[in-house]
């Protein structure tokens, strides 16, 4: 299955959840926000939410800025 993650194509096993994706990317779920198809995903749904084919996923976090 292919999704777009931060603007780049990514191959995932069918059935991958948000939790699964974050684990694969070694990201601490507490420091990122996940947008799927422009909707912010509630962290409570990470375990259950299976990413759909062609999902546009954005992983956003705080960075230095003024």
């Amino acid at each position, binding site marked *: 299955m292919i999704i777009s993650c931060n*603007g*780049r194509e990514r191959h995932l096993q069918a059935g991958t959840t948000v939790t699964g994706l974050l684990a694969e*990317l070694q*990201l601490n779920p507490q420091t990122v*926000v996940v947008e799927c198809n422009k909707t*912010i995903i509630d962290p409570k749904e990470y375990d259950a939410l299976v990413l759909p084919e062609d999902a546009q996923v954005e*992983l*956003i976090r705080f960075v*230095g800025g003024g």
Partner: protein
Amino acid sequence: MLKIADKTFRSRLFGGTGKFSSSAVMNEALASSGAEMVTVALRRVDLEDPDDDIMSVLDRERYWFLPNTAGARNAEEAIRLAHLARAVGGTNWLKLEVTPDPRTLLPDPVETLKATEILVKEGFIVLPYMNADPILSLRLQDAGAATVMPLGAPIGTNQGILMRSMIEIIIEQAQVPVVVDAGLGAPSHAAAAMEMGADAVLVNTAIAVAGDPVAMGRAFGLAVEAGRMAYEAVLGASGKHAAPSSPEVGLEFLK
């Protein structure tokens, strides 16, 4: 004490977290500046470097996070960033920035006002970055902005307070705190803003790119304190002609 919405701050210097050469330098410079509120931006996670994470570097017990919407070109993008900031940071405080032109990074007044109106209704504490326009300042205040943040000069230019007379009018009229943001390049600029009666200043570039950011952080911290103290002490009037500071009487013996 500075009060914004329901929160009080001892320091009237807000720090930025961009452009530092390393996290260690940033932390030391912020500590030496005395800042309690710091701005952060939102960007895509760098998937090549997943450990590069400012949340693991900055102590949230010590600093009040003020996420910005830098990069937003219109109200819609700013609102999207605001929602992301709330989701990742658990805060409804927001430095609203809408800058359609990357060359000048000047704030769009129409889109800024529009976004302020919407975000205030959604429960955000909105601190809008704005041009030094006294009428816009009143409009933002009426829309429920928690502060107004007029620019001294364009972002990152270190030019100081180019908009002095307009900022003076803004301060005179404001019912909410006035934070001079952007363009302050030297501690003397920050002190001048505070002497004029600004409630706070926000400084990023001038500290981050200094030869010694840690010493510059402290210099800005001291300047902000000195400027505020001078404002509270009430400055003497300035005039065009000389006025002797030594007595004019008792000089008859020279004649």
